[in-house]
């Protein structure tokens, strides 16, 4: 990480920062921040974080064999403090770190990808309301401490514990603003179907996180009927420049209130919607060749031949969040050239304050 503005640390002498500004600069000088100031992680604050999560400092939250690191609770707590988390957020942050370690997530693929995806933390269950994790207005846009700091904590863990440093191991060409922080809760109240974690085998009263890696975020504005809406969503999941178009990495769709209401009224099951959306992700082979996504000259039959960006509809994550008003949904195309990475399993949040 380049740093041309921070004064160098004094060498060969004890450095005990006293003032808040000195403490903040101390953290900058060591490359511990994401570019924004961090809260200095004092012993007292870290201990409070550990206690709230029910952890001892040496407890291993997750083993990351590809990075040769066992991430301890103390390290997670330090980064959660630095991110600005309240102690009661610790179980959520810890669960998200476990999500990074899940083999299905493909940590190294996600964290080192040129496409520099946003890692979105999706929170389900009663803990979301208890902690004030926003699922409604401006769900992706900031303004709530829980969303902002839980997402930031995970990215500080990537930076400080897993050593994903921009330009070295994190090879994002652009990155995304969401790499700084991205966390939201599913809106489980205004919901046409069962919530994501229940669909995946958890009880409604359990709290969970799921990580989703998305190369970009596309807002779909649509005042049509449910079929027209789902056609537009299929188009957004399969745009010709999408890095996920050929690799078919699982994506996700977040329906806001008006669209959720429209889909509720349609009477369609979630399964039927997934299958319909998948059918709308068809692109002609001719288009793929015209845009250089496939090699070769356009041949007779290429206009009629189809490639589907989603060929396993059951992989498509459909959730609800966002404002009750606005005919908008957020499409989150996958991030890479492989189906085998980019989404964690549903991780149950454990800890003394989840009961």
């Amino acid at each position, binding site marked *: 990480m380049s740093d041309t503005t921070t004064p160098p640390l004094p060498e060969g002498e004890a450095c005990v920062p006293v003032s808040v500004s000195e403490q903040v600069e101390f953290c900058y000088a060591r490359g511990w921040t994401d570019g924004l100031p961090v809260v200095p992680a004092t012993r007292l604050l870290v201990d409070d974080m550990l206690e709230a999560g029910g952890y001892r400092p040496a407890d291993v939250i997750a083993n990351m064999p*590809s*990075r*040769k690191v066992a991430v301890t609770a103390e390290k997670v707590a330090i980064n959660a403090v630095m991110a600005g988390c309240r102690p009661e957020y610790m179980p959520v942050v810890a669960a998200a770190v476990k999500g990074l370690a899940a083999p299905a997530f493909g940590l*190294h693929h996600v964290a*080192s990808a040129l496409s520099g995806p946003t890692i979105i933390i999706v929170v389900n269950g009663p803990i979301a309301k208890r902690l004030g994790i926003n699922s409604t207005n401006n769900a992706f846009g900031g303004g709530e401490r829980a969303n902002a700091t839980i997402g930031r904590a995970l990215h500080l863990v990537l930076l400080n514990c897993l*050593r994903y*440093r921009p*330009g*070295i*191991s994190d*090879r994002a060409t652009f990155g995304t603003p969401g790499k700084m922080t991205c966390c939201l809760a599913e809106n489980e109240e205004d919901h046409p179907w069962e919530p994501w974690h229940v669909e995946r085998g958890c009880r409604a009263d359990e709290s969970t996180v799921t990580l989703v890696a998305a190369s970009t975020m596309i807002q779909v504005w649509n005042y049509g009927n449910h079929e027209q809406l789902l056609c537009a969503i299929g188009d957004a999941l399969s745009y010709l420049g999408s890095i996920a178009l050929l690799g078919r990495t699982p994506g996700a769709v977040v329906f806001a209130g008006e669209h959720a209401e429209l889909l509720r009224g349609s009477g369609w099951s979630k399964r039927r919607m997934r299958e319909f959306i998948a059918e709308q992700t068809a692109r002609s082979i001719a288009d793929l060749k015209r845009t250089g996504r496939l*090699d070769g000259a356009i041949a007779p039959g290429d206009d009629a031949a189809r490639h589907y960006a989603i060929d396993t509809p059951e992989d498509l994550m459909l959730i609800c969040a966002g404002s009750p008003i606005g005919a908008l949904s957020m499409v989150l195309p996958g991030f890479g*050239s492989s189906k085998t990475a980019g989404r964690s399993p549903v991780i149950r949040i454990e800890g003394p304050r989840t009961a």
Partner: protein
Amino acid sequence: MLDAVILEKAGIPAIPVITDAFGSTAREMADLWGVPGFRFVMMPHPLASLSPDTIEHRADELVDKVLQLLQEGQPA
């Protein structure tokens, strides 16, 4: 890079081929795994856009170097 390091640790000789844009990433992974001198072959970036014929040609260009390093082995 990681695959090659793991193969070597399992006793299977391996020389990774890296595009030059990822040289620093490869070296960082080798450092992380405690094999800072791990040898690899670099070729020009990018790879993903090459046609099958160009990839064949690229492989022909690199194979002697890869074989040479395989015979010499990774540093102990």
